[in-house]
């Protein structure tokens, strides 16, 4: 019986062996078998392969010297933990269904009524924001960063409303990121901050001209576990929203 031909040229072998990983993980892959056998037979190819593996190993080792920032690992875990806790909530089917029904009614009823006063519009806006925060999957942030200035730079580039100066002690908090949104044909922005407890504090900013009249209270309200409050700052209607306990929120606002 004729033995199958396995010889390949050195050039073909080099072409294939370029994909051979320096950690040896491909040793059992049949794609490399013929090329590896050729390297055992041909000294010139063997020398080339040795140099190639040495080069690859050195590149991998050099690149491994680049270390991520010290805070990156914990920042990732924080983000993952926040998301996991949000998912746990959505896994309670009856509670979720009830919340959806209540929130849907809260939004649809005012929308079905004739568009009324500015305060009604504000209620709609607030409820729309709370519903969005409760939705699954959670809306994706346009930019994920811990740097507040980068979020505001992004919002400025997008020509979305933002606050040039942060109220209270918010400036001490790292951000989770930001997003631009639309409501009633009006663009507005969302910037999320990370509170020390791990909960998020959401800051919605919209031009106050979006509402014919504005009635803001000086106290936080509660709805479906969310604490929220609106303020007028520099011609912007600012809405703070968080699930964190009030004592923690009040430290920063």
């Amino acid at each position, binding site marked *: 019986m004729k033995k199958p031909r396995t010889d390949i040229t050195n050039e073909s072998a*080099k*072409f*294939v062996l*370029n*994909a051979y*990983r320096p*950690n040896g*993980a*491909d040793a059992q*892959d049949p*794609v490399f078998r013929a090329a590896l056998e050729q390297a055992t037979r041909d000294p010139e190819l063997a020398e080339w392969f040795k*140099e190639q593996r*040495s*080069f*690859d190993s*050195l*590149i*991998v080792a*050099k*690149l*491994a*010297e*680049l*270390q*991520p*920032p010290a805070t*990156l*690992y914990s*920042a*990732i*875990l924080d*983000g*993952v933990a926040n*998301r*996991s806790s949000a*998912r746990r909530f959505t896994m309670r089917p009856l509670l979720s269904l009830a919340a959806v029904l209540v929130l849907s009614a809260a939004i649809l009823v005012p929308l079905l009524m004739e568009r009324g006063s500015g305060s009604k519009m504000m209620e709609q806006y607030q409820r729309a924001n709370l519903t969005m925060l409760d939705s699954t*999957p*959670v809306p*994706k942030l*346009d*930019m*994920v*960063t811990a*740097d507040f200035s*980068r979020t505001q730079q992004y919002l400025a580039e997008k020509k979305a409303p933002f606050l040039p100066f942060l109220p209270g002690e918010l400036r001490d908090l790292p951000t989770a990121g930001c997003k631009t949104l639309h409501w009633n044909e009006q663009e507005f922005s969302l910037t999320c901050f990370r509170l020390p407890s791990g909960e998020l504090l959401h800051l919605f900013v919209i031009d106050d001209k979006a509402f014919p009249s504005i009635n803001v209270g000086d106290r936080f309200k509660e709805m479906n576990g969310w604490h929220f409050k609106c303020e007028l700052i520099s011609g912007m209607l600012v809405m703070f929203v968080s699930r964190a306990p009030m004592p923690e929120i009040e430290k920063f606002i």
Partner: protein
Amino acid sequence: MTHELDLEAVVRRFYASLYRFALSLTKNEAEAGDLTQQTFFILAQRSHQIRDTSKVKCWLFTTLRREFLRALRIQSSHPHVEFRSEIHDAPALSTDALRALDAKAVIDALGQVEPTYRTAVELFYLSELSYKEIAHSLDIPIGTVMSRLSRGKEQLKAILASAFSENSDKIIPLKKDEEAAH
């Protein structure tokens, strides 16, 4: 059979190599950190959809690259590095010369590889994905991966040799001193 994804273990195992890959794409440490975080954030959102946990690594690198490209489209401006044709004429690089270069020089050199070949080479060195996984990640045939690796690595060697010869001016006096000492 499905396995529950241990997110913390996945982060611990892959975040450093993902960060390096992000750094090679963005050329910016802050953006690389953000991109790495964003990738794990997406993983956390979709972890329940991942059936085959053995493919998480490939999924992470593919997603990070996709997010990078999406951000590029959003920003619509990014540094574009043209391949320098003169590097083909650069001298060969010895192992000792390569050892003398620092990690930043290597990642800078990676960034100068022609864009067509660059990502395959970056994935090969920074993720240590197999050629099959690279093909899956980039959605290209296996033969194309091998071709890109072959040409890309050739370019990388030439760029590194060029970088070394540019820097070697600084160490020539030392060499001469050493020779004089002998």
